[in-house]
């Protein structure tokens, strides 16, 4: 109360503010757009639920069945149609697919990343490359794989080439951003000493970004493992994803699905632990 008494003595210059109702939430563009975005998303969600084709499903029944299934899958995992060794080998195959994809993606992305970095190339070339990346990303990976499958035949070769596209797009963005962080002065100094573009790239740009590049490449490898599982299931890439697809669609064996899920989960969590350490290092740097 004392405080209030003290403050009342001050002749308030903003008297007009005291008389009318004081609003405390000023309307600004950001607040309006936030509100609008949330409203539109909610309306679309409601409409989506309304328009779903529920077929002859009784939702409660289906959900109960789902929980029962999930219980079987996760609590009673069991390998039926192939051995533990086979599953382990197939996990390695999937890791191999992810590795090749990441490697090819990285090699191509280094080159285009240099062209996409505005300080190393021209604004126009950079724009063109970034447009290409946007296009690549707009086509889902599975479609890239299937399109290449027409030329190379369905299998691991088409899968790796098709999966490489999104890796290229992702890594071009990551690499070019770390290239752009290089101090202008360094490039100038080397230019002044008469070094040509390639010399600048190999003596200054890549050495100073190499830790970032390795980190981003590993983060992509983590993503590519998941992609490789999916392509094994959907586009004939082989590996553990294919086994999972077989267990689900042909053998209809929930216990086997559970066992395979645990394999995938284990690898994914190991990769994620590495990725978290790498991210923390990136943040600290």
């Amino acid at each position, binding site marked *: 109360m004392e*405080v209030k008494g*003290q403050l*009342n003595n001050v002749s*308030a210059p*903003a008297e007009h503010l005291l008389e009318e109702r004081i609003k*405390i939430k*000023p309307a600004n563009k950001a607040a309006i757009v936030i509100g609008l975005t949330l409203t539109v998303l909610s309306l679309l969600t409601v409409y989506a639920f309304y328009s779903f084709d529920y077929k002859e499903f009784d939702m409660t029944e289906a959900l109960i069945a789902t929980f029962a299934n999930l219980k079987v899958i996760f609590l009673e995992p069991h390998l039926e149609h192939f051995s533990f060794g086979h599953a382990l080998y197939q996990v390695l195959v999937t890791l191999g697919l992810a590795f090749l994809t990441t490697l090819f993606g990285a090699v191509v992305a280094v080159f285009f990343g240099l062209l996409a970095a505005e300080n190393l190339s021209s604004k126009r070339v950079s724009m063109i490359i970034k447009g290409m990346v946007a296009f690549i990303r707009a086509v889902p990976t599975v479609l890239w794989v299937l399109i290449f499958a027409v030329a190379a035949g369905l299998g691991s070769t088409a899968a790796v080439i098709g999966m490489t596209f999104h890796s290229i797009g992702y890594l071009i963005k990551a690499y070019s951003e770390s290239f752009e962080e290089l101090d202008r002065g360094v490039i100038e100094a080397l230019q002044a000493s008469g070094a040509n573009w390639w010399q600048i790239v190999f003596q200054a740009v890549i050495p100073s970004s190499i830790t970032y590049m390795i980190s981003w490449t590993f983060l992509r490898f983590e993503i590519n493992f998941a992609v490789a599982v999916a392509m094994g299931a959907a586009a004939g890439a082989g590996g553990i994803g294919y086994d999972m697809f077989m267990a689900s669609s042909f053998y209809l064996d929930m216990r086997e699905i559970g066992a395979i899920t645990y394999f995938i989960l284990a690898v994914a969590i190991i990769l994620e632990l590495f990725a978290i350490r790498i991210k923390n290092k990136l943040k600290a740097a």
Partner: protein
Amino acid sequence: MALLEVNQLTKQFGKHSKALSDVNFSVQEGEFVTIIGPSGAGKSTLLRCINRMIDATGGEIRFQDKSVLNLKKKELKQVRTKIGMIFQHYNLVNRLSVIENTLHGKLGTKSTMAGVLGLYSQEEKQQAVRILNVLGLKEMIYKRADQLSGGQKQRVGIARALIQNPRMLLCDEPIASLDPNSAKVIMDHLKKISTTMGITVIVNLHQVDVAIKYSDRIIGINSGQVVYNGPAENMTPEDIQRIYGSEADELIFDIGGIHAG
């Protein structure tokens, strides 16, 4: 009667590192007290033990003659509404307006529903506007907090504490992130709050010269122990040596200048 009494306070982090050991002092109503000491001495921990942002390991803290350490959740909130706190990094909600941030000081007295919806009475809003006026933020009322300078943000922090109608302010390094001019403005405001409103102010500082200039009393801490507790003007270079240890040399030079002046 003292407003705040701290008796044999200890705080231990983990098994071995003792942040505070056997800390004793009391603070009178309306007093301006500064706690100084080298970084890592336990200043921040001590301040946060008082309103139990950190729970002490042992000892006793009495605020308005009521023991703080054994309070239930609800009573603790009640006590906290009487203690304003000011932070080094201001701790505002950046995306909200200045007046909303100020009104946050009222949340402790609100029902859950009113707090969730952010419902404030016209009277509370008027009080917020008045306080912001006094602190020279009249033009900033509807600005977003992230559009303010550091000094202005800290004044919003003070406004948020004042609207609580507090009996005491705890200020954790309030000027450590500010330039000298803004720092002076903030310290002047805190001093004025103490002298004209009779609110007790406890400030953590690491600048000895500022502490001597503004405080009624200084408490010096080193390695979690009180090594000086007395009026600002009685402090000698030896005292500073004891508080700051090996860091003292450069500081004593500064103080010499102040005393001479």
